[in-house]
């Protein structure tokens, strides 16, 4: 459903993503892990068509994002990292706008609105202005626009960031539930979420995939059986080696 081929992104002389190749099938939830600045958000922005790649290609459901961006984007639901929203709108007004932008009209739009408001527990604040919402509700409003059109592909950039433990649990359960039929990529710093919601995980470091496998496979490759130790081992190894080399 999602196929990234030799995906590369340069910002000036800096290489943010260096030749990433991976696929995500329907029914698969891919956890995208990595330290800050590893290239996770840049990769997600390229997959959703926000950033053009310097080289490589992305196919969503067999449609090239570079050749047919509108068709490819129609199949994606996207939750950006900062969960941006139009502050001057109400929750319902914002979701209605997003639905209309996605081509929903009439009863299809009404049904989609009710479903996403229920799924994200936004009922109590549906008529409230977005600029009066708490961070948790804002995040859920942005998540609601991502699932509004029932997309086949979901790209969620840190979907549990800023949520309280109960809300995190609800979102993880929602991702696991949606992941049974959809292809989902979600990035996170919280390694427990890999067990809670992912069927597969990759760790990205300095724009490259350093490991790819199921949570059990990853744990098996950890010297201590801990994902945290594996993460630290893989993402600090080169930095540690470079520091040692510099001191010699």
């Amino acid at each position, binding site marked *: 459903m999602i196929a990234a081929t030799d995906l590369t992104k340069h910002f000036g002389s800096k290489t943010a993503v260096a030749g990433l190749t991976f696929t995500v099938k329907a029914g698969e939830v891919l956890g995208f892990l990595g330290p800050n600045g590893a290239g996770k958000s840049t990769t997600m922005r390229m997959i959703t068509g926000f950033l053009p790649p310097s080289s490589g290609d992305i196919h969503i459901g067999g449609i090239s994002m570079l050749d047919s961006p509108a068709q490819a*984007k129609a199949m994606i639901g*996207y939750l*950006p990292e*900062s969960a*941006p929203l139009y502050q*001057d709108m109400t929750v319902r007004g914002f979701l209605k706008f997003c639905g209309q932008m996605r081509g929903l009209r009439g009863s299809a739009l009404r049904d989609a609105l009710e479903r996403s408001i229920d799924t994200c527990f936004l009922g109590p604040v549906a008529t409230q202005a977005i600029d009066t919402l708490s961070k948790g509700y804002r995040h859920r409003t942005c998540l609601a626009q991502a699932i509004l059109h029932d997309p086949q592909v979901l790209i969620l950039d840190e979907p549990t960031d800023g949520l309280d433990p109960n809300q995190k649990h609800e979102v993880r359960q929602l991702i696991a539930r949606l992941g049974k039929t959809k292809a989902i990529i979600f990035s996170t710093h919280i390694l427990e979420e890999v067990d809670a919601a992912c069927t597969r995980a990759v760790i990205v470091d300095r724009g490259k995939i350093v490991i790819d496998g199921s949570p059990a496979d990853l744990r098996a490759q950890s010297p201590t059986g801990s994902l945290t130790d594996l993460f630290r081992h893989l993402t600090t190894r080169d930095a540690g080696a470079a520091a040692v080399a510099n001191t010699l």
Partner: protein
Amino acid sequence: MRTTWTIFKRETASYFSQPTAYAIIFIFLVLSLGLAFTFGRFMRAGDANLEWPFFFWHPLIFMFLAPAVAMRLWTDEQRNGTIELLATMPTSLWSAICGKFLAACLVWLVALALTFPIVLTVNYLGNPDNGAILSGYLGSFLVCASFLALTMLVSACTRDQVVCLIVSIALCIFMVLCGYDDLIRELAKSTNESLAEVLVSVGVWDHFRWMVRGMFRVQDMVWFAATITTCLLGTSAILSARRA
């Protein structure tokens, strides 16, 4: 086309759900009608004509107020990150640009429409050429639309509304001053005539004044259409380049 309409509705609702549009329309009405009845000598001139008493002031008012309407169009999207949502929806950037531009134009159409009492007054007091008045309104609207498009271009370059406002006002003032005969005559004396001619061609005044006299010239229409289109295409190019 559908997404252009959706964005147009959202932007229009955003303008009229906040005090900004009402404040700007109110200030415009006070200034345009106030200047017509004071410095414009509308009542004292004894002429059933809106050319100098009323339309003359419009470019001078628009050069300050039009940027105040359009400055938020892309600065807000970039500062709040909502451009990331907009750009990942199944629509083109061009649709969003057109939708936003048309919404800003609507605010000014409402403002110009609300000056109707002066048209009623001049028809009550005398026998004016209503064709020239209509042409004057069209000229005013096109000047304003040019300033809105220019401000939109500037708003694509920055996330800061204040920077956008100051730069846009400076550019609009330049476009208005370029057409003043006295200024151009002095400039032609001190530099050379070809530079003065180039500046006149950049200014709105040379095109606006024919329209307020009731004269439709192809070159004026082409100039306004080209200015607006260039600014909108430039906006698209800058927004695309900033993401590349």
